């Protein structure tokens, strides 16, 4: 529970302002906590007189931490290809493994995996555990979870990372629950604490309004899903060598209650905003669907793709696959041009790692300008067409 030291509390009210749950208020010059408290710790962090602390009670030690070693990444394989997030996981996994000493292992499930395993080694894996089985060709929650649980139990890795994709987000929590392991969702930063080798997992919370760093002090493995497009992959090196270990999983684990009847790739939804080097994005400021025609023209001129804020998608001006932000996609293009987007944190977390950000907005106080490399305060209906024709002119010569 949250303990308030009445001697130290000065009744400043910072904790009250910091509480997203309305769980703390200042009464007669001293903070008082109510039942809404979730022990998130935001108040403790910001209490200058250090009048607040969280008493967690006795934590149980579930395992001998020394018995677990090695960094694992789960390499997603779908429709006969390794999913790019696997290479990003190897990029960050390589750094963690180099700091922590032990090796970096990729786990690959599916059917027909030779090529994929070789690719994972080129991208940084020291070893690849391959479960090549027809029963793993289709993604099925129960068999993927069962097979990974089995492998973790028999090998005891210290850290297990997976992509925060539709697949990773669905079966990894089941594995963590079955193992009694801690799991942090959608991490955007991972590091190792020098003193004790603990994995520090940082993720956005409250729609990206705050960042939280999380650790799993008592349980193993330390598990996290990692947001795609945030970590950088290493350049592939085909001359790297590594061990490919084929593993057989017991039949009863691969027995599924689930049957995949069909797997449909949606062409019309295949908007690869995460792959585009240049994105032109529109928000509420476009006023209606027609506003996106301006955005499209500029994107076409730049050879880029069109993205959107949640407000524009919610208004029905453009489809969901274009959406950037906490509830949409995370993008990291070389150039991101935000037109008529206010830049609420929910949007910002999805695009702030772009190399260069241009913001065009009428409201000079819009938070997007805090992120932008170049700020244009003005009417987008005037600026965007001017920009399109100017670029055309420059490129034409």
């Amino acid at each position, binding site marked *: 529970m949250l303990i308030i030291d009445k001697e130290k509390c000065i009744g400043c009210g910072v904790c009250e302002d910091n509480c997203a749950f309305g769980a703390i208020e200042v009464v007669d010059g001293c903070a008082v906590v109510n039942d809404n408290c979730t022990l998130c710790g935001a108040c403790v962090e910001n209490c200058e007189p250090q009048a607040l602390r969280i008493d967690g009670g006795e934590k149980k030690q579930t395992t001998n931490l020394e018995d677990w070693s090695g960094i694992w990444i789960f390499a997603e394989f779908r429709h006969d290809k390794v999913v790019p997030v696997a290479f990003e996981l190897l990029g960050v996994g390589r750094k963690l493994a180099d700091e922590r000493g032990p090796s970096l292992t990729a786990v690959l499930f599916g059917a027909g995996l030779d090529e994929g395993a070789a690719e994972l080694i080129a991208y940084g894996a020291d070893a690849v555990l391959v479960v090549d089985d027809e029963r793993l060709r289709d993604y099925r929650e129960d068999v993927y979870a069962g097979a990974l649980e089995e492998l973790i139990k028999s090998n005891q890795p210290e850290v297990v990372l997976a992509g925060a994709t539709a697949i990773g987000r*669905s079966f990894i929590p089941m594995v963590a629950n079955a193992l009694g392991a801690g799991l942090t969702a959608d991490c955007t930063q991972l590091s190792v604490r020098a003193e004790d080798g603990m994995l520090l997992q940082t993720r956005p919370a409250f729609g990206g309004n705050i960042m939280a760093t999380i650790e799993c002090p008592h349980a193993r493995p330390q598990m996290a899903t990692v947001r795609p497009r945030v970590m950088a992959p290493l350049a592939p090196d085909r001359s790297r060598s590594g061990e490919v270990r084929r593993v057989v999983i017991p039949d009863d684990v691969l027995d599924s209650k689930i049957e995949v009847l069909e797997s449909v790739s949606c062409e019309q939804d295949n908007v690869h905003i995460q792959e585009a080097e240049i994105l032109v994005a529109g928000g509420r400021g476009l006023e209606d669907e027609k506003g996106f025609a301006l955005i499209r023209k500029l994107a076409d001129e730049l050879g880029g793709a069109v993205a959107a804020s949640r407000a524009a998608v919610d208004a029905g001006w453009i489809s969901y696959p274009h959406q950037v932000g906490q509830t949409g996609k995370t993008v990291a293009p070389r150039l991101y041009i935000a037109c008529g987007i206010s830049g609420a944190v929910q949007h910002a977390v999805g695009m702030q790692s772009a190399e260069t950000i241009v913001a065009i907005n009428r409201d000079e106080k819009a938070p997007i300008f805090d992120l932008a490399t170049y700020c244009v305060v003005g009417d987008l209906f005037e600026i965007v067409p001017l920009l399109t024709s100017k670029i055309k002119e420059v490129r034409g010569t």
Partner: protein
Amino acid sequence: MNILVCIKQVPDTKDVRLDPRTNTMAREGVESIMNPFDRHALEEAVRIREEYGGSVTALSMGPPQAESVLREAISCGADDGVLVSDRAFAGADTWATSYTLARAIETVGEFDLILCGKQAVDGDTAQVGPGLACRLARPFVTCVQKIRLLDNDSLVVERMMDDGYDVVRLPIPALLTVVKDINEPRVPSLKGKMKAKKAEIKVLGAADIGADKQCIGLAGSPTQVVNVFTPEPRGDRTKLEGTPQEQVAQLVKALSAYL
């Protein structure tokens, strides 16, 4: 078909903003709402009951004030509401929450289907649905965008994937998490509101569900928050000046590397 829907009360995060001067969260006008994804789970449950009969129970874990989302659920068609509430649950991460919900559901009764929203918008983890399925040892599918077929012992659903969707058959009893595309939730009816007002919300505490103290709340959570901070702003900004024509000219020059 007896259905249980898990519902969370959350702060309306889309209205939450950081005050750049004080670096604190501006909460004025931020209300507690029913997690938007859960609203779709509830609607789907009510539609299934309307077609096949049975009952819809809404269940929420949270502080005493979360009772209001259960009343709201009843006004939108749920038959009854159960609040799982105890100070001992505070500080639960997704692991401890999955455990607590599973114990509570086992205490309440047997259900053919358990429906959850894909994720709650305050934490955005999407971990509790699958965790709960694991605890209850029942098959599950996440991110369901459509229930195509439903009979007594199986259902066929469309599961949203990053590159399209899969059509999946699974047996009942089952657990599904749903995305917003699955339906358009109704607004509460007048009759529903009357019913919600009078409804008795059952409250279950740690002792009622036979919870192991080592598995609930902060003590039962393998993950621990060590630091909370606000994202760093980028520091390299240039404000362009002059007429729109002048600004555009400067911008095109600055962006020459990308053209």
